[in-house]
């Protein structure tokens, strides 16, 4: 839910950073958006804890206002340049290959988005491997972590910082809708299929790839929007997993009924 909020709320950060730096996809933009992402989580916390608002209400208020603010910024200040609402909402994934990184001698080393996303992927993998225990503990039981003397604020904001970073980097190529779809649907699907956190992480990555590839071919067949097809495909996978668990759970109950409970 907070990831959803961040993916929308970073918009003003992207726009402001864009207005300051005058270009897309550079370091200033990333830093600006990531900062707004962390600010979003802080705002949500303040509204929830200090103003005694329910958590879902504080999330809703924060991200809609920030997103709306971003939309106003785009429509009123960036009309002349190549940052428009359409691109922000739906992305321009088909144009990614048209924006390659050229080396000094003119060699094409692949799309810019691929390099940036790849770097972020590497950062996230390292953070996950190194921080697995800390993230699992503080997510499952923050009070217990605090009682062990572990800073939950560090893990919370570190994690939210990573979510913002991912969102911002993906924004440009895939747009807000697909960011949310890819941020939520694959892990939600994986959660239905497994009950182990480690397996869930692997499965999420696999489902993400499946969504991208499947969605791409779906778009080819339908000759439609790639982002839309991918989001739809993510939904189809989720529905499939849900149906699968319904069927297998029923058989599991029958199996369990025949086994003598060891307790």
């Amino acid at each position: 839910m907070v990831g959803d909020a961040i993916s929308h709320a970073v918009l003003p950060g992207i726009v402001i950073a864009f207005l300051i730096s005058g270009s897309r996809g550079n370091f200033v933009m990333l830093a600006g958006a990531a900062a707004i992402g962390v600010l979003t989580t802080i705002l949500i916390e303040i509204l929830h804890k200090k103003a005694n608002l329910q958590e879902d209400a504080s999330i809703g208020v924060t991200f809609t206002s920030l997103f709306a603010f971003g939309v106003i910024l785009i429509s009123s200040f960036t009309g002349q340049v190549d940052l428009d609402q359409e691109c922000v909402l739906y992305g321009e994934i088909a144009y990614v290959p048209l924006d390659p990184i050229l080396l000094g001698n003119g060699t094409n080393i692949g799309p810019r988005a691929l390099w940036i996303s790849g770097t972020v992927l590497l950062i996230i993998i390292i953070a996950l491997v190194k921080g697995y225990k800390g993230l699992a503990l503080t997510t499952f039981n923050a009070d217990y972590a605090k009682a062990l003397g572990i800073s939950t604020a560090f893990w919370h904001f570190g994690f939210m910082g990573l979510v913002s970073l991912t969102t911002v980097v993906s924004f440009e190529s895939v747009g807000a809708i697909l960011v949310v779809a890819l941020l939520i649907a694959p892990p939600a699907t994986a959660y239905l299929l497994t009950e182990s956190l480690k397996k869930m992480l692997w499965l999420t990555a696999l489902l993400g790839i499946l969504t991208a590839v499947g969605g791409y071919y779906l778009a080819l067949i339908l000759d439609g929007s790639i982002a839309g097809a991918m989001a739809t495909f993510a939904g189809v996978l989720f529905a499939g997993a849900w149906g699968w668990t319904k069927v297998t759970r029923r058989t599991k109950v029958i199996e369990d009924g025949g086994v003598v409970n060891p307790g």
Partner: protein
Amino acid sequence: MDIRPEKTAIEVHNLTASYNRKPVLWDIDFSLPQGQLIGIVGPNGSGKTTLLRNMMGLMKPDSGYVNMFGKKLDEVRERVSYVPQRETVDWDFPANVMDVVMMGRYRKSNLFKRLTKKDKDIATEALEKVNMLPYANRQISQLSGGQQQRVFIARSLAQQADLYLMDEPFVGVDAATEESILTLLSEMKKEGKTVVIVHHDLQTAYEYFDWIVLLNTRLVASGPKQEVFETELLQEAYGGRLTVLSRIGDLMAKKDFPMRESEFKEKEGPGDEGAS
């Protein structure tokens, strides 16, 4: 009444704490002994959980401080273990029983490192102690309330601390779990551990604990149970609540009964003692 122990495990000094400027604890001051089973008892809303949270540094008091083994909590964290109320976590979290108990081996210092074989052995032993070893690979979402509670206690045991603070471990558990916790508590006491338990039920408090802290926003009493279970003190803590008052009547009767029985036993000699 505030009786001071000889060897102090926890010292609470002039503690005042509040939620939204409403004081929940008012000028609490007492010391708890080492090596005993201690119950923090009081009516609903008397600040028991808040007191525990202040002891564990999960909440900042408005004034006052808490010392453990004569030191600040940060200096002795390794020796102190906390068992939160089980309702405070989401049991649908994707993890199995062993994953949760292994969290008892997490330290600030090893958070970025892998756990060792020894950690796993300690966690296994802890599960054994609460009779939950057969469930080691069970998903935590499939546990009953009592089993969840035992997993939480096993995690705490895996920490191998000297002082344990448990928040309402007896709430909503089955008879088997209650039995298992009580056996464990007496073993822990034998090993010289100190266990502080937030408990809302006066009736069982007298059976379970050696030392009782009676709380109702202010400290009503702190001392050995025989001295704390006096009509005036119980009424001071629970007074004004008619439903509870009638229960105190029952309690006083209950309290009198085992007292007479123990006098009787003393006259009869130690023969009965060995049988129990």
